[in-house]
């Protein structure tokens, strides 16, 4: 599938009706989502024929992008049932399959190494401090091949240090810097639209052969 086609399919997806600020629910734009998954597939081969998990999937944009790029199986995980319902409708509209689980990422207790790749647009941790690192830590435990994630550019050094030192990553690399267009969703947003700089990361977990049974 061409990048343009992917972006246009994702652009038609339904997004949050009533975004919940405590969960930092912001839609992942079709522009960013399509580039993220397209790069994961075409530069690294981390999507097609793989098992992909979308952490904090919200309305499912990243996970659905993975299904469109021929992931063998995709699982979206989110704490919010309203989001999961929209994700399910979006999957039906695209006529693809995506497994959905309602769970808090920090309580995810997965057995074995089933998931190859984790993709996520985690909360940035502006409302609940440290939640972004929680996502990253679990993602690096669950994935056997790679983790793709978006983080604020201002936190770059911190992310790199934590991933390599604390979360068992063997490599942590910023693939590109993107502008994240945050539409005015919440009342406390004073400006109309805000552009913030985010990094697209690719993390590789250390091999876990000794720990899998």
């Amino acid at each position, binding site marked *: 599938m061409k990048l343009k086609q992917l972006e246009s399919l994702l652009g038609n997806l339904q997004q949050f009706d009533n975004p919940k600020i405590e969960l930092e629910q912001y839609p992942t734009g079709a522009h960013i989502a399509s580039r993220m998954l397209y790069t994961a597939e075409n530069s690294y081969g981390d999507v097609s024929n793989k098992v992909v998990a979308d952490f904090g999937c919200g309305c499912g944009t990243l996970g659905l992008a993975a299904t469109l790029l021929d992931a063998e*199986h995709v699982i979206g995980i989110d704490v919010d049932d309203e989001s999961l319902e929209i994700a*399910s409708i979006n999957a039906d509209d695209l006529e693809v399959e995506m497994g959905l689980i*309602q*769970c*808090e990422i920090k*309580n995810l*207790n997965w057995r*074995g190494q*089933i998931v190859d790749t984790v993709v996520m647009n985690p909360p940035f941790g502006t409302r609940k401090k440290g939640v972004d690192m929680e996502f990253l830590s679990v993602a690096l435990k669950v994935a056997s091949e790679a983790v793709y994630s978006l983080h604020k550019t201002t936190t770059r050094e911190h992310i790199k240090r934590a991933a390599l030192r604390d979360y068992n990553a063997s490599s942590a690399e910023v693939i590109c810097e993107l502008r994240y267009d945050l539409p005015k969703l919440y009342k406390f947003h004073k400006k109309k639209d805000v552009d913030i700089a985010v990094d697209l990361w690719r993390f590789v977990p250390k091999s876990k052969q000794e720990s899998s049974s």
Partner: protein
Amino acid sequence: MLSSNIKGVINGFPLRIEVEKVVEKQVDFNPDFLKNMFSKIDWKALADASKIMGYAELPEEVPDASVLDSDEFLQKFHHALLELHLEEGALVCPETGRRFPVNKGIPNMLLHEDEV
């Protein structure tokens, strides 16, 4: 949706399945993927889960890897792993008996405050 292994492996293993409704969805057959998954999953958990969901065609004990050359076997494995979906029911923790409801195919694994 890997109802029996991926979903079934959260919090205590394997989760017991209570079936109210199972749906079957057609998924493209990919032998290479299945061969790869064979070494990763807990066979007995898959076989038991499939049986509870009404599909008893899988051997109960872990088959020898030579079965992966058989197209007939792979088709059955494919069906059990990818095409059987628990649409309504529950996943039950084998240790505590805690029920995690499954509605519209989505298991609710949220924990209460005192369970974290």
